[in-house]
């Protein structure tokens, strides 16, 4: 397929996934605020840190109030990573490839964008839970529609590559910021709030119920292990990277015994690193350092995807 088309489909999927992730953790924080005692009201600053857009925020907003943060993350058109901006970009990408994706997928992405755009006309988000739930569902619909209306050929695999890489990145970010934020508040340890906050972290990744089934009791190290290394949970970093690698191999036709281009090499390395990782070792070496390194490597994978498949080399006359 055309390089440009592959590029657009890859980013279409990434932006939809990004919008969904932002919706998920804003929603969880809203709910958390209701459960927490007033003096330790939900912290909104880490929400912004999670997205990596802190300076973007502080340039234009006075403080990390709930209202400011929610606006910044959902409807702020100037924030390229707000839900509205992500969906605008997803839709623009979908528009450039509507000859390649199924009409059903195009209509869903279009509908998704219109849903959020219409909501943005009101200043306050009424019934926020319904709103964010609708966003998550719309994103799941995109994935499901792509799965059941498109050939599982190259275009589909580029979408899945984009989606899984984005997902791995977002899980790592949520884990990084939340862990950092939760650990120091040791006065909460053992209190009802401790379980509440760790549960909130799991819920930000829609992982709470699945975690319960796997480990039952909420324990910080196990939460970290689950979100990083669980081989079966679809939002764990390991599972996502594995999914990305599978799509990549389906695109290139290569098997897992070696590599034919920089993406296969980098992604294969990252996958096997996670396959053989041990959570206690990681925690000993510093979780933040590990996650930081992981995100760096994911960025390199993204760069290599661009170089190998999308880069338009200048035409020599």
């Amino acid at each position: 397929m055309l390089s440009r088309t592959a590029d657009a489909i890859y980013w279409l999927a990434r932006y939809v996934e990004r919008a969904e992730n932002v919706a998920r953790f804003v929603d969880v924080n809203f709910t958390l605020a209701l459960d927490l005692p007033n003096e330790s009201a939900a912290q909104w600053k880490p929400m912004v840190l999670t997205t990596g857009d802190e300076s973007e925020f502080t340039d234009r907003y006075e403080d990390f109030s709930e209202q400011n943060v929610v606006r910044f993350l959902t409807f702020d058109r100037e924030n390229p990573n707000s839900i509205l901006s992500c969906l605008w970009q997803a839709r623009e990408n979908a528009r450039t490839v509507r000859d390649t994706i199924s009409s059903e997928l195009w209509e869903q992405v279009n509908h998704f964008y219109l849903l959020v755009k219409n909501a943005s006309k009101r200043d306050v988000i009424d019934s926020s839970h319904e709103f964010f739930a609708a966003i998550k569902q719309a994103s799941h619909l995109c994935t499901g529609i792509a799965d059941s209306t498109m050939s599982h050929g190259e275009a589909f695999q580029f979408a899945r590559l984009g989606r899984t890489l984005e997902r791995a990145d977002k899980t790592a970010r949520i884990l990084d910021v939340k862990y950092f934020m939760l650990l120091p508040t040791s006065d909460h340890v053992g209190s009802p709030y401790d379980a509440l906050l760790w549960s909130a972290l799991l819920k930000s990744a829609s992982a709470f119920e699945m975690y319960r089934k796997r480990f039952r009791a909420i324990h910080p190290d196990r939460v970290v292990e689950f979100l990083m290394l669980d081989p079966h949970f679809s939002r764990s970093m390991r599972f996502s990277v594995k999914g990305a690698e599978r799509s990549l191999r389906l695109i290139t036709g290569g098997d897992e015994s070696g590599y034919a281009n920089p993406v296969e090499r980098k992604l294969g390395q990252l996958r096997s690193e996670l396959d053989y990782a041990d959570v206690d070792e990681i925690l000993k070496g510093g979780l933040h350092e590990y996650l930081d390194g992981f995100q760096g490597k994911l960025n390199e994978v993204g760069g290599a995807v661009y170089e190998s498949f999308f880069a338009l080399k200048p035409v020599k006359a």
Partner: protein
Amino acid sequence: MKFKDYQTDGFYDELFEKAGVPHEAAKPLVAKIESLPKGDLHRRQQAAEAAFLQMGVTFTVYGSDEGTEKIFPFDIVPRVIQPADWTQIERGLKQRIEALNLFINDVYHDQNIVKDGIVPGELLNSADSFRPQCVGLTPQRDIWIHVTGTDLVRDDAGKLFVLEDNLRCPSGVSYVLQNREVLKRTFPNVFESMNVQPVYDYPNRLLAALQHLAPVGVAEPTVVVLTPGMYNSAYFEHAYLAQQMGVELVEGSDLVVQDNFVMMRTTQGFQRVDVIYRRIDDDFIDPKVFRKDSCLGVPGLMDVYRRGHVALANAPGTGIADDKAVYAYVPQIIKYYLKQDMILPNVETFLCGEPKQLKYVLANLDKLVVKAVNLSGGYGMLIGPHSTKKEQKDFAAQILASPRNFIAQPTLSLSRAPTIVDDDFEGRHVDLRPYILYGEDIFVMPGGLTRVALRKGSLVVNSSQGGGSKDTWVVTSKEAGSSQTQPTNSQTQTQDVTDA
């Protein structure tokens, strides 16, 4: 909503012979609409609009930030074309396209038509759309014009005329296909009972016509649609046609010339392209040959084309035949190449480049429509009866500065069709743009884009000037190959259809 108060006001009406009396072919439609419960038509109109928005059937509006996309205004009351009229249209268009194709070929080769004194050489040499770069070129299968959208109008007697030919990158066909999809949902029963000729196979026909152009020896040609990009106002159409044909939609930057072939950049490396349905004007397709500053096209494309390694539809240079001054000679062109009389007449046209005709035009500016020969989309026009003295004076100055660049036509009192306006039907002026494909043979899609001047009294139907559209139903009678049981129209009409 009922038609009981609907007046034709002395205009030819596309649905009614006179107030209260629908044309034979439109009777089932009118009866259906009359039978709808109060408010139902409005509901259907809204549902249709919502469907367009949901499907993202929109066009880009330049210069506005927020709502850069709008749905093309659309009226759900279709326009019905009677069998006899369609027969004339179909035959007339085939004749016209065949002759114009021969004309273009002649223009870029021997110019016999000039040598024989039919068309003045000066007319060709002075045309902006003449491409010296195309002289001596022979396109695949000798076909220059693969896709045409010809604008037709009717006068107050109901007589059909060709208003202009669009031979370069005519757009709008995607709206015809989408309008039909939505109308089928809007009026399913009446649609079935009227034997409306289908339009859905246009993309198939287009693909076949394009594949027909494949360079020699290429059994399974790679066909692409070349678009200027998503900010082009017709981008939706480009994407839609590519999707419906199952071919790649490419931009200039996706293509590159290598070793005398056009290649596209894919994730698996370079892949050869054989046929390009280009939706970019001549001026922009190859900066090495045409405009140097264009970054929309492909450097070196024309060289590959000249070698016969890639086909372009429409061929570069076709614009010479839709120059509005050349248009005035089409009756002679048909006569010269086909030895036939024109089936679909031209509108009477005065060439400002001819001193006598110029004099007449200047003296009658208040009665004529004056058009710049190289502009389209309703730009560069003076509509005499609706203009002020000052506008006429300004226009006269422009005409005198370059007479060759203007033509004038009498104002036709265009036919009208009932259109929903608030809670009632009002007559609005319409034209018709059928689409013609020239591949193995010439095919006229049954129907076309009916454009409506939505503003009361307006004669301008262009979408860029506040026009909208309607679905166009070409109805056929029972004997013409349908198994429906609808009573047939008159005997003559039946014969006309079978003759076609």
